[in-house]
């Protein structure tokens, strides 16, 4: 069971918001005493996801939460956009797949950096990606 301890919503619409978001994620990670390497992983993951959101949906919202599973605390990030959605999630999760002009590492790479990864998408309605990184995971 995962409990949410604090919640903070950030609106992403331009490039400056990305820097702000990364700083907030870092603050949150430091607050729960996450190690440096895990901090780097979650910030990098956030950076990947927020870039997707900017590129494909012109922005969206990110919710930063401190969560607890009882024994350990973690950071949960939820990215929600109202973009075109992803028609084939299975394909998007494969290494090397990209519809834009990128390396196609975004989603599968991000998944490798975090402990929990969940993606929901509806074509024409938008995409929601939720990731969790535990302080010691």
């Amino acid at each position, binding site marked *: 069971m995962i409990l949410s301890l604090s919640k903070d919503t950030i609106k992403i619409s331009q*490039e400056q918001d*990305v*820097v702000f978001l*990364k700083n907030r994620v870092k603050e949150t990670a430091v607050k729960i005493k996450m190690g*440096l*390497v895990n*901090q*780097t*992983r979650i*910030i*990098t993951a956030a*950076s*990947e996801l927020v*870039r997707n959101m900017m590129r494909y949906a012109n922005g969206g919202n990110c919710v930063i939460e401190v969560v607890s599973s009882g024994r350990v605390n973690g950071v949960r990030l939820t990215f929600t956009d109202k973009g075109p959605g992803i028609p084939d999630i299975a394909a998007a999760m494969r*290494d090397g797949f990209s519809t834009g002009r*990128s*390396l196609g*590492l*975004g989603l*599968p*790479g*991000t998944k*490798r*950096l975090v402990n929990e990864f969940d993606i929901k998408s509806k074509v024409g309605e938008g995409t929601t990606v939720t990731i969790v990184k535990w302080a010691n995971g």
Partner: protein
Amino acid sequence: MDKIPILRMGSFLLVTIQVDLYDRLALNLEADLVQMVQKTNARGVLIDISAVSIVDSFMGRIIGNIASMSKILDAETVVVGMQPAVAITLIELGLPLKGVHTALNMEKGMDLLKSMIDTPEEEANDQPLDDFVAE
């Protein structure tokens, strides 16, 4: 608009990235650096990223691009001072930066560049060590 300074030292160009890169800054650096390589006829590019705490796939791609573009202009690129956390994250992300030479610090990077340029017929190797072993 922020700019990352590019210093010239002999036939090498030195770049020290002191701030966390955002997309536009990184793209500008790519363009400026390639311009400078051509203008100064540089033989080597040394990029110090010891102060950079986050490198995501976009930044990784820019670094790879700089290396490939410089290579076409006959200059080698060495990335120095990557933080352990950044290295681990890049590997997990699936971005081993193939074709980019790396060194622990400025001094070692400079040595590596010199050794590569003194033996121009040598093929570009992924690992600095191969240079030692080759002889």
